[in-house]
């Protein structure tokens, strides 16, 4: 067959993204389905909070510490705000802040990690040693200390946590990038004379994306839990912003009176991290056998 004269027809072997997702969802285990549905519900709550919540975020609707009633399904808090409304707004605030922090952490840690793996030498040594020192201090402890120094406000919280988490992201992204950098296909691109941009974005990044996406899920959980813990300790997200961690702290005294008020926001936190973990667990199983038996 001689195709030099006949024009090449474009072969549409490219399986669409939607088709791929559909295939994957078919084989998803029950736990992963549970996780995905929960995440979707949380996302809806976060995006449409003002529409879903019966009352405003810091609107005082009645007396303090009311029990649940047809008007206030979950009762009211210590200054008479509707607990359910604050829970719904809390989704937006708590998840949003954790998401921004994690993105920032990946932007810093991820790019430095890939750069260090690629350049090696002094740059890699330098960053790695500094990161090693930071890794020797637990994140929560360091965050507490830094918040004591710079004072508790939202921007400080995001920057501090993003920087601390970036050290962890750096470690992982450097390791996975290094696995890719030593591959013959990268050497082959080098021998071809390719520039840095091609090597990073066409050769390495597509290969390290799957583990990094999985890690993103886990880091998000970690950041989310750390922010909740800091808020619970009273140094994280500050009132009057509705936030689950602080809501636990504000209502904790009620538990002695037999009212499970702090359990609602705490359960909201737990449910989300459990859901993300289930999905990540499924992802790990899938990507560990990359393209086996397509």
């Amino acid at each position, binding site marked *: *067959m001689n*195709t*030099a004269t006949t*024009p*090449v027809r*474009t*072969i549409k*072997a*490219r399986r669409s993204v939607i088709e791929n997702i559909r295939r994957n969802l078919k084989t998803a285990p029950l736990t992963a389905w549970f996780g995905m549905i929960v995440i979707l519900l949380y996302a809806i709550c976060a995006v449409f909070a003002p529409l879903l919540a019966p009352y405003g975020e810091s609107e005082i609707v009645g007396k303090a510490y009311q029990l649940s009633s047809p008007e206030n399904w979950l009762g009211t808090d210590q200054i008479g705000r509707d607990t359910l409304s604050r829970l719904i707004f809390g989704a937006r605030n708590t998840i949003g802040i954790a998401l921004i922090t994690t993105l920032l952490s990946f932007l810093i840690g991820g790019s430095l990690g890939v750069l260090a793996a690629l350049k090696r030498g002094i740059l890699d040594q330098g960053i790695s040693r500094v990161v090693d020192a930071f890794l020797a201090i637990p994140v929560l402890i360091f965050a507490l200390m830094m918040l004591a120094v710079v004072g508790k406000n939202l921007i400080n919280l995001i920057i501090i946590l993003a920087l601390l988490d970036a050290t962890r992201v750096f470690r992982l992204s450097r390791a996975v990038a290094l696995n890719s950098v030593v*591959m*013959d*296909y990268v*050497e*082959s691109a*080098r*021998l*071809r*004379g*390719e520039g840095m941009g091609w090597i990073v974005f*066409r*050769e390495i990044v*597509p*290969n390290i994306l799957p583990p990094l996406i999985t890690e993103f899920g886990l880091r998000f959980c970690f950041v989310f839990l750390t922010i909740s813990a800091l808020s619970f300790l009273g140094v994280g997200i500050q009132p009057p912003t509705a936030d689950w961690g602080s809501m636990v702290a504000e209502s904790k005294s009620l538990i002695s009176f037999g009212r499970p008020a702090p359990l609602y926001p705490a359960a909201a936190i737990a449910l989300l991290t459990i859901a993300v973990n289930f999905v990540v667990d499924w992802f790990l199983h899938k990507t560990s056998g*990359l*393209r*086996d*038996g*397509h």
Partner: protein
Amino acid sequence: MVTDKKRVKGETLLDIKGLKIDGYSDDVWNPIIKGIDLTLKRGEVLGLIGESGAGKSTLGLAAMGFARPGCRISGGSIMFDGMDLIAASEEQRRALWGSRIAYVAQSAAASFNPAHHIIDQTVETAVAHNIMTREKAEADARDLYKRLQLPNPNTIGDRFPHQVSGGQLQRAMTAMAMSCRPDLIIFDEPTTALDVTTQVEVLAAMRDIVEQFDTAAIYITHDLAVVAQMAHRIMVLRYGNLVEEATTRAMLKSPTQEYTRSLWAVRKLQKPESISDDIALRIHNVDASYSGAIKVLDNVTVQVPRGRTVAVVGESGSGKSTLARAITGLLPPSRGEIYFNGKPLPRTLAERDKDTLRRIQMIYQSADTALNPRQKVRDIIGRPLEFYLGLKGADRDRRVVELLESIELNESYIDRLPGEMSGGQKQRISIARALAAEPEIIICDEVTSALDQIVQEEILSLLMRLQKKTNVSYLFITHDIATVRAISDEIVVMHQGKVVQQGPKSQVLSPPFPAYTELLLSSVPEMDPDWLTGLLAKRSKKAKVSA
């Protein structure tokens, strides 16, 4: 007691009938062994041969009544000396293992426990099963070490596994298998991880001891020449089925199946030698080292003529791959010069211009790591076209298809990912990527050593056809002499960073040989059941003469 049992020669020891084994992957059970019969008499050595995926290791382990995790025996029977191993309890099987059926694994380094002395592991079964006292077992182990020609047989057992070499460890494992004088030993690719010169010693020791104690054995390998030295009878397996079974001599002389013949396909390939004075690449007095202290290349001079193939042959650590790195500029030489078309080549990669880079291409051993798993064939082959030749869009795709056809694949492969192709197809894509740059010289670094024989033959033939068509030169790095014979015009023999010998193929492969070439060439197993015997006789005669 087990060891007192009378060993009658000629009596059937192992009888496997209609054996089926499944393996679990992707949530389903797939057949690995699809109904195989196997019988073995006392004192007989049976060779199991086949390529990757043939199920030979699975069958070998099944002969012990053992299935790896993720495998299950789904049908048939395994009778060992009158005992049904499938019906037997875990305890009954365990009583046989080590004492009456022993196993020798491929990697001795991984199969010895790093935490215990070699001798403790050698005598473990004998002592645990109360076959011998510890003192007696240890004395016996030292005797076995001596019979297996291990250095310092009286003290080597007091060492830890990481303290002795791979070849010695493999022999120590044979001693371990032999410690209870079993009726049957399963050898599972015991020499595959060794260099050829070490392989000879280990093979000789293993064959000798099996003969001395009249032990039956199943010898598993992918190398027909190796098994020919060891086995009385050979079974050829493919995809879990029996292809052919015959005595060793009969099989080598007149195989009935086409597939059996393909197992030595590469050996039948013989390119007529052709000499040329038109030198494309000249490596002149080159030294190179990684850390500065030890020279990995020591005063290496090699010439590659245009349109010809120069094979660089040597064992691991000979510096042959470093030579490739020096030429490509990844490891600038510390001394000497490399000339390309008569002009000195800039030492480092960064100093070379695009057109120089285009002219020298490289193909790697493993297409799995050389092709980006996330790029489609269209982009893998298309990139050099775009990068060097400026081809874009439809022109580029047209050329990609032409290249696919030149490597005997068709355009339906254009949107495949590497993971969706077989090993041979992937290596073809690597070749197409190198060809896309329209190079003058291609460095081939062990490009066939990860492939099955028949695929090797196809790839080598393809490379030769392409050379005829494009007049490209190959610098062919390999450790396999059969490949060298098949493809080269000239040969360079390397040993410990130095060039031992070089010249036209006919000259290098015929006597007189320098000592190392002699050792290397004579160590390559031949398709002759008497080869090892002959070689050992020749070597001992020579040793006597020199003594």
